[in-house]
């Protein structure tokens, strides 16, 4: 990080520094940048920063967490809130309204990142799962180190990805790969992700941030207006598909299958119980 960089946003889950025109964002919610209420609030604050600051000309998103870029939605928070609402006598409609409100907010964040007038780069390692994968897909480019694994495990929970993942993955790599990852819930290693074009640059372990910054610095050499025009031309309008995805997620959410899956997830002490031998997951040192 350059000595000239300035922290312009310091929140519980992320810190953003402005270095010249480069907004360097570090996610740091342990254990693996789960996206719950707090992370959502902090991502909304990030959107306000880059939307209201003309000096931002490129953005890199990375993670400080050892486990990886992000494990996705905070399923324990989701489950516990859902149970609390049920116990307080909230109707299905009321519970669904809250889920819908969360989805609307996270979609606004993802859409804002997807439609920035400047180049955005996700620098990823380790787990890039669910909502974390969706966050990376909202960026224009993904630079991955060899440890990165991409996965949409939602069907194991009786759900589909709900933060815009299906339309954006299909946009970026096509329907066949999207079906493969969604319908099997399998994870994809960084090398394979690079082969299919999901990852723009594959780098050695621990190198994704440095390389992503070089990519961002390259983008800073170009005329801002030209970059904006190119991005506008390159970024198709997915709004109808994204709305349909939210509708479908909400339809599925009230299923008892989801209740059971989330309860099992919450009962497991592991960080990511859907991984092989997940019950063995141990706590990570701070």
């Amino acid at each position, binding site marked *: 990080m350059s000595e000239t960089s300035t922290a312009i946003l310091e929140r519980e889950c992320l810190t953003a520094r402005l270095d010249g025109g480069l907004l360097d964002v570090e996610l740091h919610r342990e254990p693996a940048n789960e996206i719950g209420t707090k992370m959502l609030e902090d991502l909304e604050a990030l959107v306000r920063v880059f939307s209201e600051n003309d000096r931002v000309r490129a953005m890199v998103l990375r993670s400080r967490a050892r486990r990886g870029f992000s494990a996705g939605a905070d399923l324990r928070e989701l489950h516990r809130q859902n149970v609390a609402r049920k116990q307080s006598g909230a109707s299905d409609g009321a519970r669904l309204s809250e889920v819908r409100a969360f989805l609307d907010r996270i979609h606004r964040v993802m859409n804002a990142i997807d439609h920035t007038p400047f180049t955005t780069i996700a620098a990823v390692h*380790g787990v890039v799962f669910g909502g974390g994968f969706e966050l990376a897909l909202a960026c224009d480019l993904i630079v991955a180190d060899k440890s990165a694994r991409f996965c949409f495990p939602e069907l194991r929970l009786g759900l589909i990805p709900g933060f815009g993942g299906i339309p954006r993955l299909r946009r970026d790599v096509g329907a066949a790969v999207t079906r493969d990852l969604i319908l099997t819930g399998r994870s994809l290693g960084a090398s394979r992700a690079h082969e299919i074009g999901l990852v723009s640059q594959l780098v050695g372990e621990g190198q994704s941030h440095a390389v992503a910054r070089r990519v961002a610095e390259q983008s800073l050499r170009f005329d801002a207006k030209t970059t904006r025009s190119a991005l506008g031309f390159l970024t198709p309008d997915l709004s109808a598909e994204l709305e349909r995805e939210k509708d479908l997620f909400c339809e599925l959410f009230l299923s008892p299958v989801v209740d059971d899956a989330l309860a099992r997830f919450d009962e497991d002490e592991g*960080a990511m119980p859907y991984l*092989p031998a997940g019950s063995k997951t141990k706590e990570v040192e701070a």
Partner: protein
Amino acid sequence: MTVDDQVLDSLLALAAERFRRDRATLKGPDDLFDALDIDSVDAMALLTALEERFGVEIPDYEVQDVRTFDALAAVVRRRL
């Protein structure tokens, strides 16, 4: 050494190197989580390293119930 033995040997060497264990202490029938003192996230890293080493793709559902090095080596062999 047979091809089967070579796969297991390479797997054990890779696991020992990655998780800083004495290669000589690792055996095929060992529970890999206990022997390496790793969690599920570390196991994902091992999966990635195996894919790199052997040039294969290993879907996670293939290793969902795998506990031993022998069983993991068998999964790799099926993909070679």
